[in-house]
């Protein structure tokens, strides 16, 4: 598959809806997509819809992040009018507030669903809590979309396992320098999973991995890309133009929730809970700084990265709170870092490009 064959969110959504399929809009970040697949529902993740900010400004304080702002803009522009439900995972205070705003004041066109992830450090009760959350969500999904078809959950878990393998393959090939594609292509393809059903997405990902060249990516300095999501798009293009090799990432929307041990056999809820509890450390799950730091250092060591670029969404509290200590720890470990504060969908611009270029010169 060539990445140009990947159809856009809008097109895919229309095709899916045109075929009579059900959709649940999902706000960031972690949620049990397997439950939605089991019900035959397409999760349509809302991370960074490309809309000019207009009406959302009137509902949010200026210090709210652009992920929430753009998500609300999509809602107010009627972009979620055709979905069967809207799922709000409890990721951070800003998203929690967005959920209240939508539910209490904005008369949503579809039922709101909520999902509360346990926060680290995970106590013995965390697994039971997660399973109870799954059961609650299952009841809600049944109420909104009807019961799961027979074998729904078994098939969803199979898709989940296969996707885990493919994600792991993509990341490990890239870290080993055996995936000759730039950051822009890598993330364009991997972000297909945010809106495509695994039935369509798995063959696409398989085809891409089979046809992607083994070498030919950036030849310059190796970096870890940390932060919220691989956006704005010109950030990735700039990294490619400057010849950076993104050897791994530590992004909330990417490896922090995609690279985890696939759900095993046995009770599906227990299996999903175990997977969730073994996800890589993340600020939004309350992971400790030391855990995050060791994780980042490990990623850098494994991929031979010389530095870390933090692409942090402005006003993202969970990320910004951790940042100073993480940077200090990385510096002590001989890993310089660069921070770019970005608004999703707003070009990073010339000054950020200069900073990246200077960072590359400094690492060389």
């Amino acid at each position, binding site marked *: 598959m060539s990445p140009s064959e990947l159809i856009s969110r809008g097109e895919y959504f229309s095709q899916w809806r045109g075929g009579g399929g059900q959709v649940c809009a999902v706000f960031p970040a972690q949620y049990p997509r397997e439950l939605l697949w089991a019900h035959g529902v397409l999760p349509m993740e809302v991370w960074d819809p490309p809309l000019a900010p207009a009406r959302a400004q009137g509902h949010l304080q200026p210090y709210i992040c652009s992920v929430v702002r753009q998500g609300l803009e999509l809602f107010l522009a009627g972009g979620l009018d055709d979905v069967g439900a809207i799922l709000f995972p409890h990721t951070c205070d800003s998203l929690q507030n967005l959920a209240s705003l939508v539910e209490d004041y904005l008369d949503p066109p579809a039922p709101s669903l909520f999902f509360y992830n346990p926060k680290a450090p995970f106590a013995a009760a965390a697994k039971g809590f997660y399973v109870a959350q799954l059961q609650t969500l299952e009841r809600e999904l049944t109420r909104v979309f009807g019961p799961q078809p027979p074998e729904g959950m078994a098939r969803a878990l199979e898709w989940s396992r296969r996707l885990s393998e493919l994600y792991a393959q993509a990341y490990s090939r890239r870290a080993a320098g055996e995936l000759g594609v730039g950051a822009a292509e890598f993330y364009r393809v991997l972000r297909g999973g945010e809106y495509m059903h695994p039935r369509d997405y798995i063959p696409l990902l398989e085809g891409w991995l089979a046809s992607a060249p083994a070498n030919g990516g950036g030849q310059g300095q190796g970096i870890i890309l940390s932060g919220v999501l691989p956006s704005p798009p010109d950030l990735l293009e700039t990294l490619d133009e400057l010849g950076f090799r993104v050897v791994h990432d530590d992004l909330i929307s990417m490896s922090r929730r995609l690279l985890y041990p696939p759900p095993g056999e046995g009770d599906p809820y227990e299996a999903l809970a175990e997977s969730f509890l073994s996800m890589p450390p993340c600020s939004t799950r309350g992971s400790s700084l030391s855990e995050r730091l060791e994780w980042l250092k490990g990623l850098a060591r494994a991929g031979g990265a010389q530095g870390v670029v933090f692409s942090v969404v402005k006003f993202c509290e969970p990320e910004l709170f951790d940042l100073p200590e993480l940077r200090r720890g990385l510096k002590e470990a001989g890993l310089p870092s660069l921070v770019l504060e970005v608004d999703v969908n707003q070009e990073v611009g010339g*000054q950020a490009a200069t900073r990246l270029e200077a960072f590359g010169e400094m690492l060389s």
Partner: protein
Amino acid sequence: MSYFAGIDVGSLSSDAAIIGQDGDLKGWSVTETGPHSTNAAEAALDAALDMAGLTRDDLAFVVATGYGRAAVPLAGKKITEISCHALGAYALFPDVGTVIDIGGQDSKVIRLGEGGKVADFVMNDKCAAGTGRFLEVMAAKLGVGLDDLGRLSLAAQGEVSISSVCTVFAESEVVSLVAKNHPIDQVIKGLHRSVVNRVAAMTGNIGITPRVIMSGGVAKNAGVVALMAERLGVDIAVPQEPQIVGALGAALMAVRAAL
């Protein structure tokens, strides 16, 4: 003998430096950038060549730096102003540990490692606060020449505090302070303090290693330099021509590139 040129195309000024293979400065220029970066770069280069008594044919290699570096077709290589400022400062002050550069559109603090290499750096975000542009706007509002700001600030008997760092808000704050008959020199000192606080806050991220030097157009303002030294608690050295540090670094990069 081969000669090498560095051209630093900034938002307000375009500067050039010509050096020999031994690094000796032969000519330099500081010119206005205006609306066209390519023309500005060429004008700066020609002015520096004039001073050196040379022509473009005498140049073995040219490196461009600064925000307009991409628009300099005659440069064989483009290198960021961060690396060029570091190398230029190191050539002028071999014991330099930190460079504070306040230019027209951005300000940056660079910590140097061995041999003039960048060890760490920080740049201001997309905002005029803490840049030469901030002072330029305020000087115009106060009807004072840019070159007079430093002298007036140093002579001030007191200081009026400016609460806004934002250029737009500070502008209206200045208007109301002047309307309330606050002495202009004390307002200017307050404005300088605002720039210094903003840039000094940036140093917190990377630390300050003496010896500290200041470069860029704002380094010509003795009032800002004095307040910066006081705020950071260090002596600050200013090169004779602080606006050509980046161009000099670029010229030194040109020697390296040609070797």
